[in-house]
């Protein structure tokens, strides 16, 4: 009886071990590998509007590739698996997540970082491990020849601000003074410097420059002081959607009737909904592309429709850049025949121009950053009118036919 129980236990144990054997199918198979794409983002908190869509675009890409049978890189076929951790906007959590992604999940590609302070915490972990990071980290210290694996997947304040303020000045010569409001961290400080330079280069005097703590709800105290300076234009610059919408709403409540801009104006639809149609009226967004409109490619429109059906939320233009990055880097992996990040990064640098679901991308930056690691794509300036985000025109950006990069 005892022996019978022992045999049963051994049998179950053997079945358990066999079931755990990776890739076991009961027949001889070719090596199917997994390419793990990681990310650490603000998936909660005021910046969740930025982070969630980026993470979901990684998932969409993985679904699309896996549905087609995987990615053939060299002799192997890779299925894509995504891993995402929430850093809530905290640099210390971002660093902990990056360590986990690199050492536990063994990722080689980290797609879609946002909030520069978290990027500064992650790069010392990812760079030595030769992990390619593509991000929306807006900050000076993100790109450089000492960080060959750090790419910026979208235009930063250094590119947007000059273009946006040139447009504002050309079309609104009556704007002579401005105030800007930014969060009190790396993203905010670097953006404040870039916006200040751009405004002053276009003859607009900066009369107020305010930094606030992310998550602040009652902005009346510092907005009162800003309004006392009577600026012609107020820019909420790199403020996250939740905070920025409150600022816009409270500016309206305090009686501000001047021009409003959002240099990092992502998610126009969400922002207009949060701040209210009347409060948002006239607000300029730098990321104002209507993903369901005729200026967007059929692939972008399909992604926007799919996202709305799945999540009942609008997809924002900056989200789609993550999908585009995966298209670019997997294209390079296939061409290079390897997932090795050095070989792939060098090839991406060599290829320079790409067509993606989001439109054309160009890799630039040698003059400004010492290395070509800044992706530039088209940016549509839009304005909130009658509760909708109305496209105005494409901003003239470096790399897309303009000198300077």
């Amino acid at each position, binding site marked *: 009886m005892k022996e019978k129980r022992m045999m049963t236990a051994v049998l179950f144990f053997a079945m358990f071990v066999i079931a755990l054997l990776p890739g076991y199918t009961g027949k001889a198979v070719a090596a199917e590998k997994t390419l793990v794409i990681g990310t650490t983002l603000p*998936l*909660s*908190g*005021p910046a*969740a*509007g930025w982070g*969630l869509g980026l993470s979901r675009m990684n998932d969409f890409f993985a679904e699309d590739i896996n549905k087609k049978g995987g990615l053939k890189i060299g002799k192997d076929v890779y299925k894509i698996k995504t891993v995402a951790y929430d850093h809530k906007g905290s640099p210390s959590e971002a660093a902990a997540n990056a360590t986990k992604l690199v050492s536990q999940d063994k990722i080689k590609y980290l797609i879609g970082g946002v909030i520069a302070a978290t990027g500064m915490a992650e790069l010392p972990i990812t760079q030595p491990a030769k992990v390619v990071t593509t991000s929306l980290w807006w900050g000076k210290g993100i790109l450089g020849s000492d960080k060959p694996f750090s790419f910026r997947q979208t235009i930063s304040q250094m590119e947007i601000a000059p273009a946006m303020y040139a447009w504002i000045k050309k079309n609104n010569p009556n704007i002579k003074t401005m105030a800007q409001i930014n969060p*009190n961290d790396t993203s905010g400080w670097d953006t404040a410097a870039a916006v200040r330079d751009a405004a002053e280069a276009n003859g607009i005097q900066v009369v107020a420059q*305010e*930094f*606030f*703590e992310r*998550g*602040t*709800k*009652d902005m*009346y*105290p*510092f907005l*009162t*002081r800003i309004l*006392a300076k009577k600026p012609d234009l107020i820019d909420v610059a790199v403020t996250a*959607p*939740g905070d920025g*919408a*409150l600022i816009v709403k409270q500016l309206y*409540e*305090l*009686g501000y009737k001047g021009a409003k801009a959002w240099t990092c104006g992502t998610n126009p639809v*969400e922002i207009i*909904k*949060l*701040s*209210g149609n009347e409060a948002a009226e006239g607000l300029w967004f730098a990321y104002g592309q209507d993903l369901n409109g005729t200026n967007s490619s059929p692939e972008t429109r399909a992604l926007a429709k799919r996202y709305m059906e799945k999540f009942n*939320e609008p997809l924002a233009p900056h989200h789609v850049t993550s999908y585009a990055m995966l298209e670019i880097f997997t294209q390079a992996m296939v061409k290079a025949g390897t997932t090795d990040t050095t070989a792939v990064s060098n090839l991406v640098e060599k290829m320079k121009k790409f067509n993606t679901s989001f439109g054309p991308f160009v890799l630039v930056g040698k003059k400004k950053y010492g290395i070509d690691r800044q992706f530039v794509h088209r940016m549509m300036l839009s304005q909130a009118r009658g509760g909708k985000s109305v496209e105005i025109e494409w901003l003239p950006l470096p790399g897309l036919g303009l000198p300077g990069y």
Partner: protein
Amino acid sequence: MEITLLFQGGLNGVMLGLNYALIALGLSLIFGIMGIVNFAHGEMYMLGGYVSYFLIGRFGFDFFTSIIAAIVIIGLLGMLFEKSIFRPLTTRPREALTSLIAAVGLAWVLQMLAVICFGDLDRNVPSTFKGIINMGGVVITKERLVTIIIGIVLVLLLNLFLLRTRMGNAIRAVAQDKEAAALQGVQVSRISALSFGIGCALAGAAGALMAPIFSVSPFLGGEVILKAFLVVILGGMGSIPGAMLGGLVLGFIESFGSLFFAVPTVSAITFVLIIVILIIRPQGLLGHE
């Protein structure tokens, strides 16, 4: 500096201070009666906001109904938490520490449940009182004015309840000396449950009041709890009038400070002033030694 700016600063301070005071009142009440540092208090505020979001935004109820509903729902929830989580811990060793840890755990669970049920993004609550009142350059929205009035009414009602009713007398007796109150026939466990419920109801009411002004998100609790603790410590742990005064003091420091200094400087000044006050009066402005 223009005089209108100073008046605007004063009005901003009243609004800010009242917001802080309403959240802190409940926290102070709970600590005063039960000695529990309720880290989940911010989540009661958050849930009150969501009551407002659903009743006004989704089901079309009016503003006043949503406030009453938030008071009742969050109050009952508070009583449930007291009975099921905190009361069993009163007989355990190191009660204060275990209650604190339980409160932190409760806060995390409530926040994550809110994320699962309501989503991660900020939600707008439609404004019931639209329009702005301009008094010679000093502006206030009708929404904020109504919030200030209701907030003051709630504080007065709480004071009336505590000072003029049998139940209120019982609560104050338990706060002073639990054992002596029990000897006088006060049912301490019933009073504890009621106090916890009232404390949470106040936070829920504050959340419902502020929701149309500031929007709601599952992370609202974490953002307000630090300020609530500052107010309670400044005013005096367990002191209701202290919480009111502490809230207003903090509100005015921040509001007037922001007229002259940048936000990071105001934060530093606020903390320095609080430290100075606590050095002079360690028990807080109106706390007992």
